[in-house]
């Protein structure tokens, strides 16, 4: 499918095609019409990414423009990417989750305890996978119950989870890094298919599944409705509370998957995993074009947002520039992206 079907922007962009008489594109400049559409928004992100790649190639030369480096970027993007896909759903549904990094940490610690690893070696390595996902889903469930049924504001509920989950992770691990010694686990996540590592493939699979779920299923349609106008969604017969709950569980599961990727990459489980992932994920989702207020979401935009940030980190690292400079530029990118989006949003609203 083309990008024009991503998110809610689709009907707007299609309208002129369906109704020949008032072609909106003609009254505004073609560029504006293009950038205002769903395709254009993503195109803008692609251009930004290409510029970034150009800068990388110019400053770091072959060390950047290299297949191995591209895979490095993807490897780095995988974990935060999966979290961002889940975050796209929660934000589109009108919520926010600050606890993703902490859930990831707890998940990584829980599934690498001596007990779990022993069981993984005795029974099957997938015990770790199940444990990680179950912990993620459990935390998401708690978030969802508090928010949907307890009436706690998402910001506060997940802020509490942010504190508690990482605290629990520290208690469980005794603040020690837990080294993974499960051959089956390493073999699976270390494997390559067509030269691409499993975590990267997982990221691609999660992204595709996320796109289909958001754009092609009743679940996705309800997510947009619940985020766009919860009262109207409720009166139309959608069980808004249950749906909200499911969104947080879905994000929890994504955190579990991301925890596994991080464990595979570092061969450790640690209560310090996933530090500040909440900020990276929210930033990627927002620069991708998902409305922070809910009601409009785009998976492709999120993926591009993740890639932009990861490539930025890569370019800076290759040039031995400091993390502080990186952070500064990241902030600037977020502001510019959001300002541009608002301009486009206004332009399409006025029609």
């Amino acid at each position, binding site marked *: 499918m083309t990008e024009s079907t991503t998110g*809610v922007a*689709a*009907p*707007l962009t*299609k*309208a002129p095609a*369906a*109704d020949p008489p*008032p*072609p*909106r594109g003609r*009254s*505004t400049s073609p560029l504006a019409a293009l950038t205002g559409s769903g395709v254009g928004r993503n195109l803008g992100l692609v251009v930004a990414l290409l510029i970034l790649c150009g800068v990388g190639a110019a400053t770091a030369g072959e060390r950047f423009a290299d297949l191995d480096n591209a895979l490095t970027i993807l490897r780095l993007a995988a974990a935060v990417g999966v979290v961002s896909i889940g975050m796209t759903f929660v934000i589109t549904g009108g919520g926010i989750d600050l606890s993703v990094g902490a859930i990831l940490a707890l998940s990584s610690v829980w599934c690498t305890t001596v007990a779990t690893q022993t069981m993984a070696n005795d029974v099957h390595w997938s015990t770790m996978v199940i444990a990680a996902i179950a912990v993620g889903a459990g935390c998401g469930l708690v978030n969802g119950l508090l928010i949907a049924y307890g009436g706690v504001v998402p910001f506060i509920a997940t802020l509490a989870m942010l504190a508690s989950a990482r605290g629990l992770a520290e208690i469980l691990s005794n603040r020690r890094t837990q080294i993974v010694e499960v051959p089956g686990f390493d073999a699976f996540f270390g494997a390559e298919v067509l030269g691409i590592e499993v975590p990267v493939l997982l990221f691609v699979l999660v992204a595709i599944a996320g796109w*289909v779920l958001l754009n*092609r*299923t*009743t*679940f996705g*349609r*309800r997510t*947009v*409705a619940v985020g*766009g*106008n919860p*009262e*109207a*969604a*409720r*009166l*139309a*017969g*959608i*069980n808004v509370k249950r749906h909200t709950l499911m969104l947080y569980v879905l994000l929890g599961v994504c955190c579990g998957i991301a925890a596994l990727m991080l464990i595979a990459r570092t061969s450790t489980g640690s209560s310090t995993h996933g530090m500040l992932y909440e900020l990276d994920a929210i930033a990627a989702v927002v620069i991708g074009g998902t409305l922070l207020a809910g*009601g*409009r979401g785009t998976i492709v935009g999120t993926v591009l947002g993740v890639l932009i940030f990861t490539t930025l980190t890569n370019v800076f690292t290759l040039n031995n520039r400091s993390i502080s400079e990186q952070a500064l530029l990241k902030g600037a990118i977020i502001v510019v992206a959001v300002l541009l989006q608002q301009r486009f949003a206004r332009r399409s609203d*006025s*029609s």
Partner: protein
Amino acid sequence: MTDDDRGTVPPETLLELRGIVKQFPGVRALDGVDLLVRAGEVHCLLGQNGAGKSTLIKTVAGVNQPDEGSLHWLGEEVRFPTPLAAIKAGIATIYQELDFVADLTVAENIFLGHERSSGGFLQRARANREATALLTRLGHGDIAPTRRMGALSPAAQQIVSMARALSHETRVLVLDEPSAVLDQEEVRNLFRVVRGLVAEGVGVVYISHRLEEIREIGDRITVLKDGRTVATGLAVADTPTSELIRLMTGRSIEYVFPERTVAPPDDDRRPVLEVEGLAQAGVFEDVSFTVGAGEIVGLTGLVGAGRSEILEAVYGARRPTRGEVRVDGRRLRRGSVDRAVRAGMGLCPEERKSQGLLLDEAVSRNITVSSMGRFARAGFLDEARERRAAEELTTSLDVRPTGVTRAVRTLSGGNQQKVVLARWLMRECRVLLLDEPTRGVDVGARAEIYRLVRDLADAGVAVVVVSSEIEEVLGLSDRVLVVREGRVVHSAPAADLDESQVLDLVMEGRAA
């Protein structure tokens, strides 16, 4: 300044618009509008939804800038680049959706943006005193300036908004459908206030869909149609209603109610909807009624009498403390909308935009939102089929403009209402609950909606209509229930009641 020697000198012209054109991408919202507002008159602005009334008042209020034409204020050509410029000049606009800060007090709201202060410190006592003075001028000294705005009734909030307008040196007051949220007594009160202002020399621009109100309060009328002025400065007293309707619609129609089905509902059959002993503490008590297949039951009463609340409780959107609701004999779980919908109920809520529609979503998606299951296999939607089904419905309901992929926000009120109705047609619901189905709907679309509701009833749907317009309830329903202070005080076939009887019941709780 506000002295007005009517009779001796011709009344002063406050505001004049000449040939105003406003173009939006793809739409020419205003296409040559003339308007002349004099001091001390109530100038009514009439026109169907989409005729350009909202755009026009936004242009006067400085929200929009006209592309062509000129604006004259006290004889001089002016521009209002911002809403503040218009307010400072003396034009206050009170929009249909009141804007205020619910958590501030009445006085704080009145002086919002031009607080009474000295050296940066608020002078609360002075603000409260002046607020009371303004409210008293409006005949509402009873509204305490220290009350929280959100705690007031919609009618009182409107009065406070008017006081806010008067806190500036306002010479023209624009009221956009001020009576929409008011009951009859409150409307009368509003008229008293408006007459008081007019006597002080304020020019009032009054927008309403209710022709009878315009008869009562208006001096002159300007009629808009398709962004053009089709008649201006008509004297209310010498213009027959039929003429006004002809000007607005370009054709002659009256409020037409479809004829009742001759055969009364079969009494032997079990009613589709049964409500028994429904109560919510402090809101309504002991509400029982039944609606048969093909029957339309009207629920009327004052705003605040509990009509909408009863409807919401029947639908499960509000949790009753006692009582039960049955559809086709099956009891529904209390306070669960999705159960009610699954049992075959549908609601067209009172606040169409905030409660009924996903405004930025396509028409088709708004129609299918309650019956997505029909277009999904294992959760995957067949969008082409969904769109086709929505198209069939919009064609048969004559939703305009056509094209189900356009955002529902771009439709007029009447067409938006049709979209909400289409949602429940799609769902093939057994019980349809309508809360103020024609609020903000123009005359032409009204008749279509009445027809549609009657057709649905004829097809066997049980319909409940809540409306503050007695004429509508009497004309549309088979049976009328009158609600007063949370109780059903009267139930009778609509044919046995007339408007004055219902009015008595609504106000006094007993028939005259």
